[in-house]
């Protein structure tokens, strides 16, 4: 007799249950659970019956009767057990249920696979996160700056246009009012066009005097953009009188900042340069033309004015007109007008054509940042490609290790398609995780970008993670998943069962996989070379720029701007007296070593120019006059700037308004007119001036100063004494013996002591101005260098991986070779050869690619040819060395093979 409570009994009951469940074909885990639970019940019942006094046999009979008395257990369980949700995600079983269910199963399995190899997962996910994050960041900037439409009606019709005169070294020429009025009347390509100028104004009557960015605009200006004011109105006919400041429209920003969003702002009177002006309108927040204008004033257009080429122009092209057609129309219109007005265009000839550039407004606003952005987005795309190739190789390598797993699954009934789908799901989950991290990374990076000084990236407020950016990130992620997941998935789908079951465990990879891996390495090296060469060229350009002598010393120099308001200061005498007193007081501040005045300081916008001729070198009729930059300065200017006097002397206090007129020129000017002779003592004067007082005698020669940017090609420069040529708006240049910023409040106080209504503005140190002018370049270089470094490190990892796997698979072969007498050197050479061949092929392809690609960098280069041989050589050498080092590690492993060990394995 068996003991009723013995374990043996329970085993029996399990068997009874299991037998009745076979027809259900349950997954093993589920069957075990069911058998456990049901057999326990039978055992409990059996025990109870025994306790009641039944014999073993009797009890057993009753239990089995009860079990089968209600009909077949299997049939009753059939529709409930199958989807109890406890079934493991058993791959290899024939797909049951919906596609979604299958996907969920795949995802669960992928999750487990990812958890099983955390190192691999982390490397892949982080690589992708950085790649997708960087791509998304740069794309959001491209999207915000270049792709987001301007907030105006039909923005694609909006253009700016200007003349250009390369022979006079003038890239942009504004129009005089007379020409603009004629063009506006005759041109047929535009719905309407408007002119504007951007003077600055000092606003008072609202607390401290403040400097506001103002624009005087022709009546049509707001109509061109098709944007109505938020409140009030814009200008109406009759208000376009000369110097009419009596009405003004203000920006949303100024309304909020200065007037606290006062709803009763209309009709309020402010003072602009001391003149009362009534606010008649407020523009919506998104209206930002030109730039960050705060106040708009009406402009009068006098058709008789041809001496001030100072109007900027914007127009709305008629629907269907392209910028090219608009250009041709404008050129024809200007040509016809010039020929009809020989009185103002004496040089015009019938076969001469005006040179006019029409540029879409959105492109104009994006400005200089367009090319760097495009270069960067391509670069980041290339890095992502390289990263994908690496991940694909990692997955291929892993796939060959997992060959056995795949083969087993195949044997269990999984279709090749099912296995490929599973692998693609794994790739998609890796990419998805990477993308999620990447988006977070992009959000942080964008926050940092917004901290850049204002004006570095135009329309930065449009740069954000919006639906288009998310769509881009999703697209990139899917593309990545396909790029790195497709090759391994397709290969896995062509599983060769026999071979894999036999030698899958050894981790060798088949010829097909190796060919794909090798191709990836070649592509990686090619792309890395392109990036390395490109970033090398940019870095070299930057080095050249930094090593340039700007013609002044930027350290310990403070620059600030002042304007004497007209008509409160209505004579040159009054203006000079104001500035003289300011300079005198500033010079007395402790810590000030030198102080000077100039109409335009280096690295500020604007460049006053004049047609200047030299006595005895007047151009023949029809010959173009070279334009020179003209700056008015006080005697202390060169000392304050740290610009040495090369020959002659600086200005003196004695070079006053009544004294003989004098000038200082730069080396370039001197060499242009007197290539072999002495410029000192020669006389120069403005073209067209025939008065006796026109000639200025050259008394000094200074080095070329880079005024607009370090990279500029300095144009001819003339300096005139401020006392003889007075301007109302000027920059004070202060050279100090201590930190220049510490002087600001003292200088402000001294200015206020002379005139409390004149603000000090645009305050900056010269070093800040220089470094700010380089910021975009520095940012581009930094990012591109980072991308290039990432690219070649990834390429190194890539070749290392491929060679390593190759070596691992050929261990037996090396063992045999060594056993047959091959020396370590021979084996080393064998492995290195393969790596060198791969890298060499990549580098060769890359060189061809780089030569084709660098042309797009040309506008970013400075002092370096796009085909700079040393840079290309350096890039090639760096990559080749990296390849050799990366291959040496597995190659040395191959030489240490112990034949006895490998051959026995």
């Amino acid at each position: 007799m068996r003991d009723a409570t013995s374990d043996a009994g329970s085993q029996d009951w399990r068997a009874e249950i299991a037998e009745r469940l076979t027809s259900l074909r349950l997954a093993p885990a589920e069957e075990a659970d069911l058998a456990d639970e049901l057999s326990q019940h039978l055992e409990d019942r059996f025990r109870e019956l025994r306790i009641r006094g039944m014999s073993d046999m009797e009890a057993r009979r009753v239990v089995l009767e009860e079990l089968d008395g209600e009909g077949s257990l299997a049939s009753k369980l059939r529709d409930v057990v199958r989807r109890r949700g406890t079934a493991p995600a058993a791959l290899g079983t024939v797909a049951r249920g919906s596609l979604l269910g299958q996907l969920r199963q795949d995802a669960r399995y992928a999750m487990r696979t990812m958890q099983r190899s955390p190192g691999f997962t982390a490397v892949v996910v982080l690589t992708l996160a950085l790649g997708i994050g960087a791509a998304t960041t740069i794309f959001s900037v491209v999207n915000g700056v270049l792709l987001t439409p301007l907030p105006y009606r039909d923005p694609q019709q909006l253009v700016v246009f200007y003349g250009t005169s390369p022979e006079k070294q003038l890239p942009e020429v504004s129009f005089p009012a007379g020409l603009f009025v004629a063009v506006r009347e005759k041109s047929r390509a535009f719905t309407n066009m408007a002119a504007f100028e951007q003077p600055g104004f000092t606003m008072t009557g609202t607390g401290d005097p403040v400097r506001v960015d103002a624009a005087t605009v022709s009546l049509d200006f707001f109509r061109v953009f098709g944007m109505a004011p938020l409140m009030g109105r814009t200008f109406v006919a009759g208000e376009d009188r000369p110097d009419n400041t009596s009405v003004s429209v203000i920006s949303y920003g100024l309304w909020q900042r200065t007037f606290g969003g006062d709803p009763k702002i209309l009709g309020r009177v402010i003072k602009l340069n001391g003149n009362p002006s009534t606010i008649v309108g407020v523009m919506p927040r998104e209206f930002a033309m030109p730039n960050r204008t705060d106040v708009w004033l009406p402009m009068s257009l006098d058709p008789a004015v041809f001496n001030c080429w100072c109007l900027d122009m914007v127009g709305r092209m008629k629907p269907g007109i392209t910028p090219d057609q608009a250009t041709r129309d404008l050129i024809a219109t200007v040509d016809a007008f010039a020929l009809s007005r020989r009185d103002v265009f004496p040089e015009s000839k019938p076969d001469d054509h005006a040179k006019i550039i029409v540029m879409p407004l959105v492109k104009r606003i994006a400005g200089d940042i367009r090319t760097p952005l495009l270069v960067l987005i391509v670069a980041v795309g290339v890095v992502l490609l390289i990263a994908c190739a690496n991940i694909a190789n990692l997955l291929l390598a892993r796939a060959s290790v997992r060959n056995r797993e795949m083969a087993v699954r195949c044997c269990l009934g999984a279709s090749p398609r099912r296995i490929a789908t599973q692998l693609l799901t794994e790739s998609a989950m890796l990419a998805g995780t990477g993308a999620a991290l990447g988006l977070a990374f992009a959000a942080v990076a964008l926050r940092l970008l917004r901290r850049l000084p204002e004006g570095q990236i135009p329309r930065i407020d449009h740069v954000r993670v919006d639906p288009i950016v998310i769509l881009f990130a999703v697209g990139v992620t899917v593309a990545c998943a396909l790029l790195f997941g497709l090759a391994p998935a397709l290969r896995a789908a062509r599983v060769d069962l026999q071979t894999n079951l036999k030698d899958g465990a050894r981790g060798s990879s088949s010829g097909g996989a190796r060919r794909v891996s090798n191709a990836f390495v070649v592509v990686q090296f090619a792309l890395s070379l392109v990036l390395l060469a490109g970033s090398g060229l940019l870095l070299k350009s930057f080095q050249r720029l930094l090593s340039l002598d700007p013609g002044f010393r930027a350290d310990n120099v403070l620059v600030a701007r002042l304007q004497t308001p007209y008509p409160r200061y209505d004579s040159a005498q009054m203006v000079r007296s104001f500035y003289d007193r300011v300079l005198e007081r500033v010079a007395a501040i402790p810590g000030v070593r030198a102080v000077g005045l100039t109409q335009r300081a280096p690295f500020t916008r604007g460049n006053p120019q004049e047609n200047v001729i030299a006595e005895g070198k007047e151009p023949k009729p029809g010959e173009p006059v070279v334009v020179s930059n003209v700056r008015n300065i006080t005697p202390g200017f060169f000392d304050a700037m740290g610009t040495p006097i090369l020959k002659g002397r600086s200005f003196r206090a004695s070079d006053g308004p009544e004294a003989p007129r004098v000038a200082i020129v730069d080396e370039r000017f001197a060499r242009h007119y007197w290539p072999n002779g002495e410029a000192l003592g020669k006389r120069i004067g403005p073209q067209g001036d025939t008065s006796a007082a026109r000639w200025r005698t050259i008394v000094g020669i200074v080095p070329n100063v880079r005024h607009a940017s370090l990279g500029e090609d300095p144009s001819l420069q003339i300096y005139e004494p401020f006392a003889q040529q007075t301007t109302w708006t000027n920059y004070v240049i202060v050279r100090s013996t201590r930190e220049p910023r510490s002087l600001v409040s003292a200088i402000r106080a001294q200015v206020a002591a002379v005139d409390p209504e004149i603000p000090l503005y645009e305050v900056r140190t010269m070093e800040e101005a220089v470094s700010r002018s380089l910021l975009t370049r520095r940012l581009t270089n930094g990012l591109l260098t980072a991308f290039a470094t990432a690219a070649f490190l990834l390429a190194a990892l890539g070749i290392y991986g491929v060679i390593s796997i190759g070596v691992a698979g050929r261990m037996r072969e090396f063992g045999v070779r060594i056993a047959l007498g091959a020396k370590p050197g021979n084996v080393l050479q064998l492995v290195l050869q393969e790596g060198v061949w791969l890298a060499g092929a990549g580098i060769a392809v890359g060189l061809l690619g780089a030569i084709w690609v660098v042309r797009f960098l040309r506008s970013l280069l400075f002092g370096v040819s796009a085909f700079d041989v040393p840079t290309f050589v350096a890039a090639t050498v760096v990559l080749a060395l990296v390849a050799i080092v990366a291959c040496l590690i597995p190659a040395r492993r191959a030489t240490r093979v112990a034949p006895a060990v490998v051959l026995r394995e």
Partner: protein
Amino acid sequence: MVQAMLDRELKKGSAELLILSLVEHEPRHGYELSKLIDSRSNGAIRFHVASLYPLLYRLEKRGWIEGRWVEKAGQRRRRYYRLTGEGRRVLAAQRRNWRQFVEAIARITGVQHA
């Protein structure tokens, strides 16, 4: 004969109500449930393996009860079932229906509720 009829009819209509009521206040395993039904119905209603467990799994699949393996020292593991939130709502509704049904039958047949 009576036993068989009662069994069939009751099981069809009210088996769910029985199970849900029994696990309302504490989790119970399958054998315990079958014992309780047997004893509380004075043997009038009996559930054996082939009727009880499919019913339990169906209720679990609907989310009305939840089974969990519990291991106690020195014993084999057992699966205990407890009422879920959803099950609690269903139980309340079924109780209401049952009461209305019984009252309606009583009004028609004159059989008094015990």
